[in-house]
């Protein structure tokens, strides 16, 4: 009797006190170390690079690449900012005709993976593309201004990324406080002045965070810049990797890229916190601004954006799809890549979610310096572009585990590094919703930690686990650069299938895989939105 009481007591305090689940540190630390090994190796390798490699890095071309990468990122950010804010303002604050429909349609270009968007543009405008075929047949025009290079890349990426800013701005504008703007009016400010002095400052943190997301997207992008032949870091790394025997140069380039991305990431994190702190008190609907004769112009702008970002790509896709069917494109051409994608993505989802558990639980349930460090460490994949992770694994595999080099295992490893943060995000959001007292209640009723997890925590977070797995699955399907570099010989996925078809200008062959990928990414976007509303409601409680 007494022994029993002592036992439960000790175990009870073990469960509910901060000491609970300390053993989780071991797997969490192991995962964190594994995540960083290849990258650490990349750094070691780069720093050990010979003088010639360093000299190579300090060439004029390198600075040109930096300039082009950062310049592209900044100009896409600017375009996304302008488009995103004005569109969000139109659909939330004015009596724009059909604003509900526009508001639902405008985020949609986000579901088009960047290389698919690039492929559709190129397949329309490029030599041997759709437009030229038409023009040549009817007008005899044989040359078009090139779509390749800065402007084409800028246009495609801007159209694919403005939804980030649009959605951030729309969220703030639609729930901002009416009385703040009224206070400004009662203090002598006109409607326009109020927008600049009160509304815009409210938006600033969200806008900054949104446009930095756009910047990161552009810096990490490999597919679009490669297809549109604009040399930024990712493309330069790939070309360098392919062409030279000494790959240290590619490693050095990767390091520079990582540094730039980390700068962007830190800024994004800071601003996100600033945005979260902004207290919104009473929320009341704002009176809509009458557009009057500007109505036509506004509808025109919205239509144009949707035309370029959504209708145009989908009709081109449809064209190639039908044309492919007519020409007799073999189903087996995309059936095997589909199988490859599904199996790789399924494995990646399973492994990534399992590995994400220890760190996620620690970071929510045991807030401390060490668990925070592990969490940050595991987020490393978020800072590193896919091409860099792939390159790091190529080095690592070739030098340390040649047996695993060019196996599915290596590819999976890359996926885990890249998408662990995503799985952690979902898991953490759902864990945050499980009140600590529920677990403590179970412990006080005599359950040991494992049973508490099994009987209380896990049933409650099942939706979060499922959405984490689905997210990783769908994002893996879209992944291009790591798959390209690491896939075993003969193994292809939908993404590599598109890549191959586009580089050989078999545009029709890429259509079906592109459609499947767009569907996959629509589902993942739906899941992400769903997840944010879930975690949002938990904050309010």
């Amino acid at each position, binding site marked *: 009797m007494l022994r029993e009481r002592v036992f439960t007591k000790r175990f009870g305090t073990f469960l509910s006190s901060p000491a609970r689940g300390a053993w989780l540190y071991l797997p969490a630390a192991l995962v964190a170390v594994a995540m960083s090994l290849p990258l650490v190796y990349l750094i070691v390798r780069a720093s050990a690079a010979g003088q010639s490699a360093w000299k190579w890095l300090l060439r004029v071309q390198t600075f040109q690449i930096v300039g082009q990468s950062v310049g592209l990122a900044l100009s896409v950010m600017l375009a996304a900012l302008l488009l995103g804010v004005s569109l969000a303002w139109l659909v939330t604050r004015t009596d724009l005709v059909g604003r509900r429909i526009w508001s639902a349609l405008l985020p949609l270009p986000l579901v088009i993976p960047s290389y698919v968007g690039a492929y559709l543009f190129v397949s329309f405008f490029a030599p041997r593309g759709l437009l030229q075929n038409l023009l040549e047949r009817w007008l005899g025009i044989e040359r078009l201004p090139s779509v390749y290079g800065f402007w084409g890349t800028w246009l495609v990426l801007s159209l694919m990324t403005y939804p980030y800013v649009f959605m951030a701005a729309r969220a703030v504008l639609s729930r901002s*406080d009416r*009385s*703040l703007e*009224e*206070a*400004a*009016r*009662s*203090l*002598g*400010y*006109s*409607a326009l002045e109020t927008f600049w*002095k*009160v509304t815009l*400052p*409210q938006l*600033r943190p969200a806008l900054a965070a949104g446009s930095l997301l756009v910047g990161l997207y552009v810096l990490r992008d490999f597919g679009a810049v490669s297809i549109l032949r604009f040399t930024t870091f990712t493309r330069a790394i790939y070309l360098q990797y392919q062409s030279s025997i000494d790959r240290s140069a590619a490693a050095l380039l990767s390091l520079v890229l990582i540094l730039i991305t980390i700068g962007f990431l830190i800024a994004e994190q800071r601003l996100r916190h600033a945005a979260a*702190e*902004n*207290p919104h*008190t*009473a929320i009341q609907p704002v*009176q809509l601004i009458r557009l009057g004769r500007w109505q036509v112009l506004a509808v025109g702008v919205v239509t144009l954006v949707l035309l370029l970002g959504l209708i145009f790509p989908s009709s081109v896709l449809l064209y190639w799809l039908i044309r492919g069917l007519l020409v007799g494109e073999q189903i087996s051409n995309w059936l095997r890549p589909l199988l490859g994608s599904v199996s790789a993505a399924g494995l990646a989802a399973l492994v990534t979610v399992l590995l994400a558990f220890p760190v996620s639980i620690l970071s929510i349930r045991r807030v401390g310096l060490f668990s925070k460090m592990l969490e940050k460490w595991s987020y490393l994949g978020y800072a590193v572009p896919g091409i860099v992770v792939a390159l790091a694994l190529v080095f690592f595999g070739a030098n340390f585990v040649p047996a695993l080099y060019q196996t599915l295992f290596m590819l999976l490893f890359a996926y885990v590094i890249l998408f662990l943060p995503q799985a952690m995000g979902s898991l953490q959001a759902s864990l945050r919703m499980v009140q600590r007292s529920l677990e403590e209640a179970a412990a006080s009723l005599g359950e040991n930690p494992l049973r508490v997890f099994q009987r209380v925590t896990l049933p409650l977070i099942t939706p979060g686990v499922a959405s984490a797995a689905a997210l990783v699955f769908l994002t893996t399907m879209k992944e291009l650069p790591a798959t390209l570099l690491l896939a075993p010989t003969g193994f292809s996925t939908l993404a590599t299938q598109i890549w191959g078809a586009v580089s050989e200008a078999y545009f029709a062959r890429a259509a079906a895989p592109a459609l499947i990928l767009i569907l996959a990414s629509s589902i993942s976007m739906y899941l992400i939105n769903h997840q944010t509303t879930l975690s949002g409601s938990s904050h309010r409680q």
Partner: protein
Amino acid sequence: MNPPFLECHHLEKAYPAQPAVRDVTFHANEGEILAVVGPSGCGKTTTLRLIAGFERPDRGEIRMQGRLLSNEQTFVPPEKRQIGVVFQDYALFPHLTVYENVAFGLRRQPPQEVNQRVSEMLDLVGLIHLAKRMPHELSGGERQRVALARALAPRPQVLLLDEPFSSLDMDLRLKLREEVRRLLKGLQLTAVFVTHDQEEALFMGDRLAVMNQGVVQQFDLPERIFSQPVNPFVAEFMGNANFLPGRVVSEGIETEIGLIPQRVPLPAGSSVELAVRADDIGFDLNGAANGVILSRVFKGVINVYKVRLHSGLVLEAFQPHYRYFPEGQPVRIFADAGHDLACFYNGIAVTVDENHLDRVTKG
């Protein structure tokens, strides 16, 4: 006589969702505080928003110092009205410091004057030491004071206050409302104060407008509204717990608790209702009992008793804290007012003052 400083004439505003305003007429003289009071959804906040210019009335007219602010043809936008507003949720700009919030309405002035005015205002509300803080670092009472300072800084002609104390706790509310009233009086500012709390309205208002369902029921001095409500709604809203039926006789009004010696200009035999507050009802153990004690709630200074008359009518009655009677005790209940009671005939006040009758029949 000068025209009133702020006038509203027959304001109307209909909404799909918000409380509507159906007929609002009142005015405030220079330096007066007008308290607009009514239950939630009565349209008092909407009225305030019409005066501020955040909404445009469907019908009716608003004038300030004789100048037309709003009617069916004219509409002066809020930024041109020189009317300050203290919002219920304070609406402090979260991205600006206390100092910048207060300076927000002063941008057309040279920096030195702005500085001086902001310091003056912060001094006035006693927050000069918090000038560099951000709004989220302030307590509720401090935010309230900053909101007041911000609204006062540009020297508005009229100040509107929308339930400014409703999100504060009781102690702070009592303290702040005294402070605010003293401050407004010191500045001789004309103000419209909206509240759902009748006690707060009586305390703050030089004049009261009692609203219900979008209509001003009574507009008068607080004392008059308290003692001479124009209809049962106003009587009940101003704290009359009991309505006692009676019949007019030549000596006064005959009721279940005896004859009330109060003359009314109605033919004998008319049925009327008397509004009696708990402090107007007394009871003791002398004489024949006409009711029993139902319950008692001890409130410190007083005991609040519920007594049931033989007819079944239940009245509330105060007794001093030391007078204690058990439940079920038969008692003699009587009117103990020391003043005329408000008397209603078919839901309309019966008084000697004909004006009241006029206003009510028109409404």
